[in-house]
């Protein structure tokens, strides 16, 4: 009676549709109802409740685990409509860990044995989704019986379920596999057989996708289907199988070229045509005619109106493009046109293809065109373009780049693209190029300066990483700068408060380096010009001091006279000297001295720079004003760096106390110490930084007593939010300060590079400081006003082409230009590291779960194991499996196999000497030819014909019943497996 008042599924759906708001409330009410109804003893009520529950589970994501026992109950109803609901529920909600799975084995067995084919089909459907190891093991026998069912409806489903059974219970292969293979032969006649064939081929397609090698022996059967079948679905699957097998066995590839080309010419079905094309481009690229035909068909796809075909055509082309560039170049017009397609898929594929065409000769033009194109694209595609330019150009240590000056300025230009979000990549490349390519540093500093000096860029958070690199570069290679004072101003400009603290720390540190450089230059100049410091000059580079000396006296005089601050001539100076350590400074700044640069070229590059007392004093004032507030910053990094700079300034000022107003005598004595300090610092900064292998850390021996495997996991949870893998790799060329400093500063640097950009509120920061922990995620502060206009110098940097036509034209020219590039200068040396060591530490092994190994092992046992035994004992009649025609076939095939291929194989492969003597002449001839036939394709046709004749003669003795093409085909396979 209760079912009378029960809501049916229809009622439920209607009611839900009426709920405009509070849908979830309603559903939870309905769920209450369902829970009650499920407990009912009336099966009608129960099954209706379950049906509603499935609905809610499937479309409203309601968990239905609680009902699993009721599912089993409904499954076991005798009434078909209830049973169907039960099975649907089971296939939807059961999984490996469902405990009631144990209870359904018998029910499944009963239904599999049912005389009603629809009940059988229900059980099979369910099994195909939820079968576990246990279920598969217990029900293999039933499946085996169903495989020979007379009803196609059941048979095809039984075949379908095998895939799941095999993967869950590989041992089932022993029982079932032969019968499965038998079904491969049934094709060709009758509609029902076609369905079964489609199912079997589908199963084999999945199996070969996971492990192709094991199925090579079945190639003859597949080949026959490839030639005979008229069903496009079947043909597609067979082609999929062959594209796997073909790449394993070159001779097989040779076999299938012709039929595939035939299909390509004949078929009207685009899906089959595309599958043929894909097979050709993946595994038959050695066969010119096939490739040509495929490219022809691809071209048809490319000019088709249908964007699906266009997309697939481009995709096929990009598979081919990596191996045979000419195919892309031949279609470049269509490719470049597609760059402006409305379809993002098509655009992306064509972008990929355009990048494939990039070479040393055209990289400049293509990048220029693409960059202009990026300006007009939507932000997403724009970044895709930028990303692919970046990755293509940096491939293999900037292989395609000849003119690095150009590339560096390209990077600068990219940064100014309003949509640019490639900060991390550009940052990485700027630093990397700086380290690797010495010659480009001048231009690099120039580009960095342009970026730093533009206050508008600071407002764009996407550029912060780039600015960080620019700041680093300008600090590191400051000796190439035309105007270091300007750099300091740029580095300390007020808007740097928009930067996240870590990048700000980089800025301040770069300012530190620039300051050291300025002071050093200044002191050296002083030193050189004041004769009273001559004693010190012994430590200096002779030529430097000599060069300076002519001017010396004059300047000195000025110095003496000018106790005021305006000796303009003092700007001329040359830095260069060696000095010994001032302990105090070294300890204070040791951790800071990360960076070094070569100062070899200093004397030339810095000859006429405007330094004088005034500018230095101004500089120091500027730094003090800018950094004093930061010495109390809440951000540790910023505070630390700022204090370092201020500390240095204080020291210098104390040492040179009043140097600006005193007479020369005191100047000499007092400055000496300050000079020494600067010398040391400068020396520390002036060493080279080069790229470092990722693996180099591993080569550092672990100090004794240090346990690296100590449990640091708790540290992980603490630092998890601030430490992420470093983006750049830096080396420490720090000879002065020893390894300890080197290590600590390396850490510092890494942290600097990797910490997320944050600006925390003072409360949070104080809290952190107090606890010394970072367990709260730092928050991003967007509170800073951003009143500068966005960077808008785009128009000036790029002549924007309107329309794809121009684009096409330009790229066309750049692509077709065959001219040898006249490089004004030779490609600079790019520092490369030993490639051998650069292999990733954890070489990824092909993923093969043990389960699958088991499966392939079992399959091989069936297909090959018996061959092995029969092949080794030729005299024995094929063993135990007398009843199975298939096995006989296989073993007889393999019996004949070794004989057939004796000619092909090196002598040691031969086993039967009498056989060999028969073929001696032929064998010798073959021995000369390489085993791999496809290496000499030209002559192979004829030879091949002969061979197949020969083989068919052999074969006819053994098995007269096999069709000729199969005979011709077989030798290819087991040969490979012997």
């Amino acid at each position, binding site marked *: 009676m209760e079912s009378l008042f029960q809501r049916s599924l229809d009622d439920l759906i209607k009611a839900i*549709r009426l709920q405009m708001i509070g849908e979830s409330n309603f559903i939870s009410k309905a769920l209450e109802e369902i829970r009650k109804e499920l407990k009912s003893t009336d099966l009608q009520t129960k099954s209706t409740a379950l049906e509603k529950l499935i609905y809610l589970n499937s479309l409203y994501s309601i968990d239905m685990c609680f009902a699993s026992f009721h599912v089993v109950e409904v499954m076991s109803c005798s009434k078909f409509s209830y049973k169907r609901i039960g099975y649907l529920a089971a296939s939807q909600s059961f999984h490996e860990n469902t405990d009631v799975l144990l209870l359904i084995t018998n029910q499944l067995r009963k239904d599999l044995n049912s005389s009603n084919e629809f009940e059988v089909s229900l059980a099979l459907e369910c099994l195909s989704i939820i079968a576990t190891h246990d279920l598969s093991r217990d029900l293999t026998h039933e499946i085996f019986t169903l495989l020979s069912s007379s009803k196609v409806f059941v048979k095809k489903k039984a075949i379908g379920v095998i*895939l799941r059974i095999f993967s869950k219970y590989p041992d089932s292969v022993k029982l079932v596999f032969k019968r499965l293979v038998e079904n491969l032969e049934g094709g060709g006649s009758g509609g029902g057989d076609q369905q079964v064939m489609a199912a079997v081929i589908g199963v084999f397609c999945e199996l070969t996708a996971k492990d192709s090698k094991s199925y090579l022996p079945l190639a003859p059967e597949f080949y026959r289907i490839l030639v005979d079948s008229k069903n496009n679905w079947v043909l597609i699957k067979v082609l999929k199988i062959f594209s796997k097998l073909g790449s394993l066995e070159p001779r097989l590839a040779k076999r299938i070229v012709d039929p595939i080309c035939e299909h390509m010419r004949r078929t009207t079905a685009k899906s089959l045509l595309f599958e043929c094309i894909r097979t050709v481009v993946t595994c038959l690229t050695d066969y010119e005619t096939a490739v040509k035909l495929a490219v022809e068909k691809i071209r048809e796809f490319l000019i088709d109106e249908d964007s699906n075909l266009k997309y697939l055509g481009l995709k096929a082309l990009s598979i081919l493009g990596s191996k045979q560039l000419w195919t892309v170049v031949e279609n470049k017009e269509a490719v470049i046109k597609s760059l402006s397609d409305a379809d993002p898929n098509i655009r992306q594929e064509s972008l990929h293809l355009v990048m494939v065409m990039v070479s040393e000769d055209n990289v400049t033009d293509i990048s220029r065109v693409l960059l202009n194109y990026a300006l007009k694209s939507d932000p997403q595609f724009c970044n895709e373009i930028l990303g692919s330019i970046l990755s293509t150009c940096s491939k293999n240590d900037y292989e395609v780049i000849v003119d690095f000056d150009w590339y560096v300025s390209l990077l600068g230009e990219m940064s100014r693209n309003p949509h640019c979000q490639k900060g991390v990549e550009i940052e990485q490349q700027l630093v990397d190029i700086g380290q690797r390519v010495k010659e480009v540093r001048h231009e690099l500093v120039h580009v960095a300066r342009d970026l730093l000096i533009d206050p508008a860029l600071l407002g764009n958070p996407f550029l912060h990483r780039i600015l960080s690199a620019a700041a680093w570069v300008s600090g590191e290679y400051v000796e190439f700068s035309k105007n270091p004072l300007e750099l300091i101003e740029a580095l300390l400009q007020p808007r740097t408060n928009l930067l996240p603290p870590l990048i700000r720390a980089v800025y301040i540190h770069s300012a530190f380096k620039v300051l050291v450089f300025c002071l050093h230059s200044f002191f050296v100049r002083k030193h050189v010009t004041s004769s009273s410091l001559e004693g010190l000059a012994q430590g200096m580079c002779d030529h430097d001091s000599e060069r300076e000396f002519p001017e010396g006296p004059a300047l000195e005089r000025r110095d003496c006279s000018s106790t005021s601050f305006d000796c303009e001539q003092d700007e001329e100076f040359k830095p260069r000297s060696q000095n010994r350590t001032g302990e105090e400074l070294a300890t204070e700044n040791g951790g800071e001295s990360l960076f070094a640069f070569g100062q070899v070229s200093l004397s030339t590059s810095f000859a006429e720079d405007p330094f004088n007392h005034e500018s230095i004093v101004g500089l120091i004032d500027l730094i003090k004003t800018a950094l004093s507030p930061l010495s109390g910053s809440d951000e540790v990094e910023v505070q630390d760096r700022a204090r370092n700079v201020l500390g240095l300034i204080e020291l210098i000022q104390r040492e040179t106390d009043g140097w600006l107003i005193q007479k020369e005598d005191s100047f000499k004595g007092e400055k000496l110490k300050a000079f020494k300090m600067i010398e040391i610092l400068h020396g520390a900064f002036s060493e080279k930084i080069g790229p470092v292998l990722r693996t180099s850390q591993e080569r550092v021996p672990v100090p004794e007593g240090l346990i690296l495997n100590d449990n640091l996991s708790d540290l992980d949870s603490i630092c998890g939010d601030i430490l992420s893998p470093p983006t750049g790799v830096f080396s420490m060329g720090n000879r002065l300060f020893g390894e300890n400093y080197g290590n600590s500063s390396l850490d510092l640097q890494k942290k600097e590079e990797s910490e997320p950009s944050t600006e925390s509120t003072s409360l949070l920061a104080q809290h952190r400081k107090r606890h010394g922990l970072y367990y709260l995620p730092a928050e991003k502060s967007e509170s800073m006003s951003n009143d500068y206009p966005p960077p808008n110098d785009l128009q000036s940097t790029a002549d924007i082409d309107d329309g794809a036509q121009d684009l096409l034209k330009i790229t066309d020219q750049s692509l077709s230009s065959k001219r040898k590039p006249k490089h004004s200068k030779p490609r600079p040396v790019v520092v490369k590291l030993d490639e051998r060591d650069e292999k990733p530490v954890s070489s990824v092994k092909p993923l093969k779960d043990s389960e699958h190994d088991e499966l392939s092992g079992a399959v091989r046992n069936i297909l090959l194991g018996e061959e092995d035994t029969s092949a080794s004992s030729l005299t024995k009649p094929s063993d135990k499996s007398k009843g199975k025609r298939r096995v006989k076939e296989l073993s007889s095939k393999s019996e004949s196999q070794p004989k057939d291929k004796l000619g092909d194989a090196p002598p040691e492969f031969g086993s039967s000497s009498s056989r060999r003597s028969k073929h001696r002449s032929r064998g010798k001839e073959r021995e000369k030819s390489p085993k791999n036939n496809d290496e000499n394709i030209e002559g192979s046709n004829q030879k091949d014909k002969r061979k197949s004749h020969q083989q068919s003669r052999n074969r006819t003795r053994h098995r007269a019943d096999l069709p000729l093409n199969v005979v011709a085909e077989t030798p290819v396979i087991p040969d490979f497996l012997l």
Partner: protein
Amino acid sequence: MIRAVMVMNTQGKPRLAKFYDYMPVEKQQELIRSVFGVLCSRAENVSNFVEANSIFGPDTQLVYKHYATLYFVFVFDSSENELAMLDLIQVFVETLDKCFRNVCELDIVFNFSKMHMVLNEIIFGGQVLETSSSEVMKAVEEITKLEKASNAISLVPKSVSSWQS
């Protein structure tokens, strides 16, 4: 192999969801949502394929077709042919059309279990088992007949209470 079949309307409400690998419901919901996110951002008249690696893991694509207010989505891996999948959607929709005579979204909303019945005949455990809509129809009709026969014994019609709501 086909990983999943989804039907959803243009508002993103799922109308049918079938996953051929077990997924917890939360995961299912998330996947449906992200698929919809991708689909609704695509313009009309663009290609029907979407790389689904970010949603369904490596080596997956999805193909979709937009009919009136509905998206039909098949998710599959490299063992299937893209164009064939597109055809298969066509087969599915054709069959539904035969089943409901001019199928519309409402038919699909109210015939949840029949949808599954049709789909189960076409795709079996992630494999394409039947590609002819007339064969599918034959099977579906048989099953419906069988269900009716088994229900005939029942004294109380299943949805007598439908007037209540």
